[in-house]
């Protein structure tokens, strides 16, 4: 870290800037008033001026480390065209050599040159067409594949939905059957209970109206009344 007492202070000079102030100053983030103070200090303090010079030289050195722009390689079809054209020229030259042995008339040579040019054009147009066709076929295939995948996905989703509905239907049917059975059981319980209540009422009525043969009427029979 920067020492504030590393150099003798000139009369009337400011304190030496600290580390944070130096770094702000170097990267021009110092507020204007403080910047003017530091500049005045540097003008008076040779030690600080020397340090500042060496830091700035370092910053200039850092600027030398540049990086190349990132370029993404593009696929080029030009070499294929060139190779094809070269092959056509070689082929035509070979034919010309073979035929040239039989006839050396300038008309035939001119005709051969014309043929070579035509072959070159044909090759180029054919290759362009082939590339175009391949691209079209590749795109169409990719589209078909995408559509097929989408159709498969939709089909699987439909099947899943149908299966879910069926299972929900089965569960509902089971629930309904159980509900019917519970309802039936409750009806039986209700009928039995009603029958039981009626029977109990009848028994109680019979018990109230029951009189033993030797007992006087309205005198209850109990342990204290028995002899």
């Amino acid at each position, binding site marked *: 870290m920067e020492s504030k007492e590393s150099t003798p202070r000139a009369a009337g000079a400011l304190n030496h800037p600290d*580390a944070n102030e130096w770094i702000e100053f170097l990267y021009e*983030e110092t507020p204007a008033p403080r910047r003017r103070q530091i500049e005045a200090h540097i003008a008076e303090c040779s030690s600080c001026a020397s340090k500042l010079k060496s830091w700035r*030289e*370092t910053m200039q*050195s850092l600027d*030398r*480390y540049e*990086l*190349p*722009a990132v370029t993404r390689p593009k696929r080029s079809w030009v070499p294929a065209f060139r190779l094809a054209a070269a092959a056509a020229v070689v082929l035509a030259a070979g034919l010309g050599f073979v035929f040239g042995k039989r006839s050396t008339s300038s008309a035939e040579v001119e005709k051969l040159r014309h043929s070579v040019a035509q072959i070159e054009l044909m090759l180029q147009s054919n290759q362009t067409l082939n590339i175009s066709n391949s691209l079209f076929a590749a795109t169409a295939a990719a589209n078909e594949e995408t559509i097929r995948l989408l159709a498969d996905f939709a089909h699987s989703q439909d099947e899943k939905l149908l299966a879910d509905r069926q299972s929900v239907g089965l569960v509902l049917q089971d629930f309904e059957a159980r509900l019917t059975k519970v309802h039936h059981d409750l009806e039986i319980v209700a009928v039995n209970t009603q029958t039981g209540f009626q029977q109990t009422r009848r028994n109680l009525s019979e018990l109230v109206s029951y009189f033993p043969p030797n007992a006087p009427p309205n005198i209850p029979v109990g342990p204290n009344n028995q002899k």
Partner: protein
Amino acid sequence: MWRVKLESDPQAFADLMQRWHQPIHNLCARMVGGLHQAEDLAQAAFVRLYSARLTWQPEAKFSTFLWRIALNVCHDELRKTKRLGECSLDALEQDEAGLAGLPMDEPGPDAQLEQRELADEVRHALLKLAPHYREVVVLRHYEQLKFFEIAEVLGIAEGTVKSRMFEALNQLTRLLKHLDDRDDKKSWNPKNQPRELLAL
């Protein structure tokens, strides 16, 4: 970024990559020192960005988010390199040819060669800094972030950023002193390099 986050829009993500690929690539290159490695790391950073898109808060600055991700990727790589005991400088040699891709409109072959040598010296000096110093230098000096922005990216106090930058600048001054001497003398000889400084 919100389109990437909310709609996973591939075109929006492609636009983001187009805008940020070069800065992120440069950051990675200066952090790890190799151009090819930097390309891989930049790709990894964008993959991580896409994976982390749901964690991005719209009120936060996108660039801060992306710088942080890229730096994390670089630190992971540096840790991995260190753990495997690889010398990072070795990996760099293969990329020295990459520096040949610098602008070719220089005055002449000699000047270009000298430029490449100087750039290589600076690169080696940067790699000798500890990563927490190097990242501050790269973000401030090369990527031109303000100190408060670096503080946000690194999640540390602005004063700490300045202290680190000051220390890094002092270390670099010691490491690169011979370059300035060479400039002064204009007659530099590799055998005269202060090896004790390079060994720092």
